[in-house]
């Protein structure tokens, strides 16, 4: 099988693992306590891309649209095996999902003109902060490529990508001709963490900075707010050995007793 060139699109967003904090003006998530990161979906996308290129050769380019701080997320991807990076320097808050897709499509075309045709473009299933679920699909239409959403693992062979999507029934498999677009959902692969040598490489890896040629039409956000906290509820099953029947009831209820 020929080599495969993959573009992975990631987004710097406030990590929302802990309690979410909004900026003072209420228009964005604030990551000062939790930090900023690419989403779990995008981390999985990077892992899928890097694994495929390890198997087949080729290259992984990682792309982001954001301010200069977003380079940190590019370095994170470079540290785990991406080969180079594209930084579309822009205020991501001014970009709606259609604008982001257009900006990415521009880079894909420019790179193709420059000799790197991306066989596969991976994006996260949905952004960690804005949750629009659209960039990958809009991008596919702009590039006139097939798109599969919710991909959890992938293989490529003979110009075809075999993409696996988890569903309630089991695993659905798509076979699509390359070039294609996929939106990745976390959970299907175990993303690697960076090692120190990777981190060193990432520092020196090339990052191309470009400006977006599209005039963003913007999103339609009017403001953010926090929902009232859900009360945490612990059910005490009992004390000592006497609680055993209640534990077994729970195990049965959640279906782990066959």
């Amino acid at each position, binding site marked *: 099988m020929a080599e495969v060139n993959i573009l992975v699109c990631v987004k710097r967003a406030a990590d929302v693992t*802990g*309690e979410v904090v909004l900026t003072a003006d209420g228009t964005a998530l604030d990551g000062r306590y939790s930090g900023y990161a690419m989403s779990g979906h995008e981390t999985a996308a990077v892992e899928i891309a890097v694994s495929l290129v390890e198997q087949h050769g080729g290259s992984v380019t990682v792309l982001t649209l954001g301010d200069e701080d977003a380079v940190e997320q590019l370095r994170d991807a470079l540290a785990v095996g991406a080969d180079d990076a594209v930084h579309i320097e822009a205020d991501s808050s001014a970009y709606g999902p259609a604008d982001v897709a257009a900006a990415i499509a521009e880079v894909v075309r420019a790179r193709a003109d420059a000799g790197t045709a991306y066989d596969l473009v991976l994006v996260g299933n949905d952004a960690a902060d804005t949750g629009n679920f659209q960039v990958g699909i809009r991008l596919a239409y702009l590039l006139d490529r097939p798109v599969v959403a919710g991909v959890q693992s992938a293989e490529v062979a003979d110009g075809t990508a075999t993409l696996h999507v988890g569903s309630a029934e089991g695993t659905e498999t798509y076979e699509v001709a390359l070039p294609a677009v996929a939106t990745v959902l976390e959970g299907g692969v175990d993303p690697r*963490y960076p090692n*120190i040598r990777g981190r060193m490489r990432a520092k020196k890896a090339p990052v191309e900075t470009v400006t977006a040629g599209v005039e963003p039409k913007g999103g339609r956000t009017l403001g953010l707010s926090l929902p009232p906290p859900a009360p945490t509820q612990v059910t005490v099953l009992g004390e000592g050995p006497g609680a055993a029947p209640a534990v077994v009831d729970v195990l049965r209820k959640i279906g782990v007793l066959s």
Partner: protein
Amino acid sequence: MAELPDRASVVVIGAGIVGNSLVHHLAELGWTDIVQLDKGPLPNPGGSTGHASNFIFPVDHNREIAEITLDSMRQYKEMGVFTESGGIEVARTEERMEELRRRMSSSRARGVESRMVTPQEVAEMVPFLEPSVIVGGFYTPSVGVVDSLRAGTIMRERAMARNALTVVANVEVTDLLVEDGHVRGVETTGGTIHADTVVIACGVWSPRLAQMAGAHIPLTPAVHQMISVGPCTALAEKPGEISFPIIRDMDTFCYERQHGSDMEVGSYGHRAILHDVDEIPSNEQAKLSPTEMPFTSDDFDPQLEQALELMPELLGDEKAEMRYAINGLLSLTPDGFPIVGETPEVKGLWSAAAIWIKEGPGMGRAIAEWMTHGQPEIDLHQSDVSRFHPHQRTRAHVRSRAGEGFIKTYGIVHPGEQWSGSRPVRLAPMHASQKELGAVFFEASGWERPQWYESNAPLVEKFGDAVMPREHEWDSRWWSPIINAEHLQMREAGGIVDLTAFVVFDVLGPQALEAVDRVIVANADVPVGKVLYTPVLDERGVFRSDLTVMRLAHDHFRVVTGSSHGMQDLKWWTDRMPEGAVCVDVTSAVSTVGLWGPQAAAVLGSLTAADVSPGAFAFGTCRQIEIGNLPVLASRISYVGEHGWELHVPMEMGAALWDRLLEAGRPLGVVPVGIGVYTTTGRMEKGYRAYGTELDADRTPAEAGMARARLKDADFIGKEALVAQGADAPRAVLCTLTVDDHTSTSGTKRYMLGGEPILTRDGGELVDGHGNHAYVTSAASAPSLGRHVLMAYLPPDQASVGNELAVSYMEELYPVTVGSVDATPLFDPENTRLKGRY
């Protein structure tokens, strides 16, 4: 969850290593009804303890920290949570090797077993370390790691087993209740607790808690970056937590500490990243814990590269992943010391903050003793919360100094090293003149004090080799031969010294005499116009201070003390004022200039109509005189062994006084001299002791050679203990020694700077009756003797004049001889000069 009681004998806020140690020791000392609170869950409520690297290196240049650390290690071992791993500080440069040799000195000075090791020896102990990167190492076998969370649980449980403690987690303190300057309770999210004693053991949050009561705990949260790399193949085969010595890569400010199959790399080499208390997230907001902030990898990358150089195979293992990386928050203080003790602002409110894992249990014990007995067994004057002058409590000062101090965590810090930030703050009225004279300013408690004057450089030529020049850069750093030239000029003609930095306070009121008499050892019931130099002791008969007291009126005494310890003196005195006497701080109202030397009387005589001849103005007296239109309080005492005066004037007249003295002194060869003469050469030749080096709460007057033939009739603090001590021979004796030969093996003459171990001529250890190893408390040139002199407490059987011993400096032995075994000065032993007889 335990119920929140509405009353407690003491509320300890915080359940990190400090709060846990404290409740344990309070319970051991008999306290009951202790309530311990934390806003987080147990056993890891989310403070700095939870992410500590938990290793302990027992060697520290500072004695106070070293003793606390050794006590902590004993306690951790007793709890069964200490694992000895050994530790190696490695050097990549020759300059660092010198620092490691200095650490050997500190090691020997505390009796800790350590040795210098070659790169090969390091590689044998730590096979994954690349020996070609380093020049050598300093190995301490007793280094180890502790489980600080487990220790905390054990200590809480011990206090609970005594039925002395109620622990309430997940409760946040919202306010501290203060009435008439005394803490009365704590308001929390779980209700109010009434208590007359409250301890803030809240680590990085402590400033906020103190502020609730109007007090200050001047520390700042600062980032210490740490990553965990693993699993490393080389470590995975080894069972348990740690099987290789911990490495401190001193030149890159990094450490590498094995943790199971992971290697933790921590750094003090990145830029100082300071936070404000209000920027720390809550437990809910935090992704990990409040003090494990998001990692900023850009700051750490250079450190990674250096760590990789040192351990290329282990850390370069492609399978070893960076899974955990944090910007961990810890507490930094402006001077690097912990902040403990009762706050000077609020009675009953105690601080137990800025304490590291290595100090936790030792500090817990010491603070509990302090709260119980009025003082801790181990002297803690450098960590005392009351040490801060007002400007040192400001946010700007704390951040400036903490930022500057961060890099010193692993830095090579010269004992004379000056801070560069947060200056200038306090300027003496004659500052402009001093600047014109080319003063080289050192900082003392915010004051800019001339250490020497470049205008005196010609004197170096005048005195030639008598200025005892120093060949080695380290020995001469933060030093100048001009100091010694000024010294010689002072002995020849006279010197004028700016002493504006003194802390000065008045004791006033109908009960002033009784108040002073109770605090000081000397008899305060003296005629108005007497000046007393006196120790101040605590109940155990050990030093709290030494200072001078002038009786200015029947109901008015003026206390003059040094700037570095002055704020603690002020609190000590204020706390002990009876009804009818008050302490009033007049530091900022009084400027003091010293005038001493053979021509001092001539200079002063030329400026005043008063009779200032030795016969008319007796030693140990003070009086108001007129220097032209300046009203001056002249006090005839001396810390340099010459005839002369401290001249006190209102602050705004300080510059005028200074100018007149300089002018009158000039034709007589009397020159301005720096504080280098005053605090080192002048006093050391005269055998005068200094608080903080020779004198502290570990020393008795008898040991310091300052015992009195008879004690005054009046009762005073420490009297009972002094009487009891009188029956016993002292367990150590403060001696002055001279260095007989300075020549090192390389031929360079070396000059000790203080802190070095004193050994027998053949390098044997000297241990006194306290179990302490002999070390140099102060070192200085004695230009009038042409000798380098050292002070050290020696075992009594070694304290005989003429005894030949050795001092270890940079791992070489130099011969020394005991010159004095009591306060007898080596220079002018009859004190004829002091008496004005030249």
